[in-house]
């Protein structure tokens, strides 16, 4: 995935779309947008930074997972088998991107009771285990099965990318030189967060067009 920091306006539509699509519990945001103020007056800046699971090529969460619930597919997606996970939280300690959550309570926002949509969206298999952004893996798999191209066809693309009003998020196959994400990385200068830790994250940030 690629996020263009020049384009992101911090509207949180991606966050809302993710919560809507994945029915995550209150307080859980698989796709978040950081609002970062930096610098000193008068040279101050405000930067909006989409974050979440980086689907690292060398995921530290997978290495530490004692139950083998966390795995990495051949296409680079890092997955969690909710039926194997014991909810030890070790992967949360290993992830330098604070991308993982563990929720042991019911999926409801208010003490008084559960709303209809909350009951409908209750995901029991996620209770008490680690959870994180999947890059909408179901959409990708179903799209591929239907002959669609993730990142090009919306039905096979993560909902956060589809929902972005500023076209700041892009998704696709980095091994395909003509994919949109590959072209964006060719045409812009980019970095990956905490690259010094050696996790080889699969999430790139564009910060300046190439000269």
């Amino acid at each position, binding site marked *: 995935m690629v996020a263009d920091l020049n384009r992101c306006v911090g509207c949180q539509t991606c966050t809302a779309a993710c919560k809507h699509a994945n029915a995550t519990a209150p307080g859980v945001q698989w796709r978040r947008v950081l609002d970062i103020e930096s610098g000193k007056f008068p040279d101050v800046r405000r930067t909006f930074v989409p974050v979440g699971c980086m689907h690292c090529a060398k995921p530290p969460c997978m290495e530490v997972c004692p139950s083998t619930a966390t795995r990495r597919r051949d296409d680079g997606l890092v997955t969690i088998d909710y039926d194997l996970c*014991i909810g*030890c939280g070790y992967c949360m300690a290993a992830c330098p991107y604070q991308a993982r959550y563990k929720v042991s309570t019911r999926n409801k926002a208010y003490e008084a009771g559960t709303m209809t949509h909350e009951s409908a969206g209750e995901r029991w298999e996620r209770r008490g285990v680690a959870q994180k952004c999947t890059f909408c893996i179901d959409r990708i798999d179903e799209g591929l099965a239907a002959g669609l191209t993730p990142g090009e066809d919306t039905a096979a693309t993560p909902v956060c990318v589809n929902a972005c009003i500023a076209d700041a998020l892009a998704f696709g196959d980095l091994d395909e030189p003509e994919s949109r994400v590959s072209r964006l990385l060719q045409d812009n200068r980019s970095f990956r*967060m905490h690259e010094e830790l050696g996790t080889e994250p699969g999430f790139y940030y564009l910060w*300046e067009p190439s000269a």
Partner: protein
Amino acid sequence: MKIGPDRQTFWDWRAAMNFMLGGAGSGLILTAAVAMASGSPARFPILLGAAMVAVGLVCVWFEIGRPERFINVLRNPFTSWMSREAWAAIVLLPLAVAVFAFGLPVPAMLLALAAFGFLFCQARILSASLGIPSWRLTGTCRLIVATGLAEGVALYLVLSPMVVRGGFEWATFVLIAALVLIVARAICWWRWRSTLGRRGPRASFHAVRRIDNVFMAAGHLVPLLLIPAAWALPKLAAPLILAAGILTLAAGWILKYQLITRGAHTQGFALENTPARGGGRAGPGIRPEWN
């Protein structure tokens, strides 16, 4: 939403108890195994050490989200130090029970090796936590091993009146080992703390700095004075050794409790560069709240 390092909330006192009881328990078994090899009484300390390790693991069992699936912890000994810790416990606990309950002639070195393996796995659990900078520091593993060994010897000293009936005739090596390990732990702590101060989140450094006085003075300097004093004053040896043992043990537990629950902050977020928005120019990177 916090951008800089934030205190972790996924491991609480229950996880800390595993490191406190497991470290001291395995250290005690290791000490007792060495004592056993030298012909000193060791059965009761071995049982106590095993019980402590087991209780520590039970504490973790209460913390995991799906306790009914606990057996899955054994599935990944290939890369996960938590899995390896569980396997080490599977080897260690039956060996310890065999020595205590049945008086089986388990080779002392085998028991010592299993205890050290468990302790080492615990230390590596922390140092493999890439998302918590204060745990992943190079010196964390050494510090946890050193304090586990020191706590084990200290606990053995505390138990000495019960182990050796009618006096304090414990092997000299235990006292010398206690002195050496207390010094070693102080050195490990000092180096680890310095590294954290240079290359860690400020909040983690401030959290561990809070225990400086009690940890170094009460947990190291006082025991280092009490143990030689026990040699010099044989009539007061018992209370002096007891006090030294309790202080050394308590310091280790305070360190681990603070390290797990208070001095553990996440990596936080950082940007290598800030973007050139509109017609402006790109800005420098940011990494808030780091030393």
